[in-house]
């Protein structure tokens, strides 16, 4: 499967600031997703990143808080805006070529908000 490079791998941020996470895939991929994984918990889907159009957000997540860009089929960014300590989590990007294919993941970004 394709390889996703995600950065930064970790960051410590002040509350009220924003952080942009980048994911670069080594080949074109049909679908990209952003997940949040809180410590010791499962993955929660934030949104599907759509190439050339607005992302599709899951219930409980909004564009103003988590703006997403996907300018082409190999790259996407997630911004965590106006951060609070509750945003401390691991953020993962994922790619998938379509139904019947597995998802592959970046290494994750461990975010701590102080």
């Amino acid at each position, binding site marked *: 499967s394709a390889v996703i490079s995600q950065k930064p791998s970790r960051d410590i941020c002040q509350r009220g600031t924003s952080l942009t996470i980048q994911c670069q895939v080594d080949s074109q991929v049909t*679908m990209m*997703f952003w997940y949040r994984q809180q410590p010791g*918990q*499962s*993955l929660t*889907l934030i949104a*599907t990143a759509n190439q050339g159009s607005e992302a599709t957000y899951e219930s409980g997540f909004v564009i103003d808080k988590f703006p997403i860009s996907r300018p082409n089929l190999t790259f996407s960014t997630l911004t965590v805006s106006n951060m609070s300590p509750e945003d401390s989590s691991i953020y993962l990007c994922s790619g*998938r070529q379509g*139904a*019947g294919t597995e998802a592959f993941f970046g290494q994750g970004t461990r975010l701590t908000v102080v």
Partner: protein
Amino acid sequence: AQSVTQLDSQVPVFEEAPVELRCNYSSSVSVYLFWYVQYPNQGLQLLLKYLSGSTLVKGINGFEAEFNKSQTSFHLRKPSVHISDTAEYFCAVSGSYAGTASKLTFGTGTRLQVTL
């Protein structure tokens, strides 16, 4: 919509012993099923997947899983575990029809702790 239940949050096991990690799913449509492993401070790695065909699926690192449609289960097994298998294991499901197939829904994970 789909949902996944992993019944065991933690499974302690001695090295070289067999292990089974349980996964049950719920869906109103046909599904694809996956098991992923997450080592500390890393992303998720695919262990195996069930799409169709044989209900016994073999994956990497000696793991296998059996799809049981009547019991809506997809339990993961390994006949003899190694210390290096210590990790978090996630079961995931997606629908198999267009419109339901793009997103994966994950279970809450099972922490496999292998000791000597």
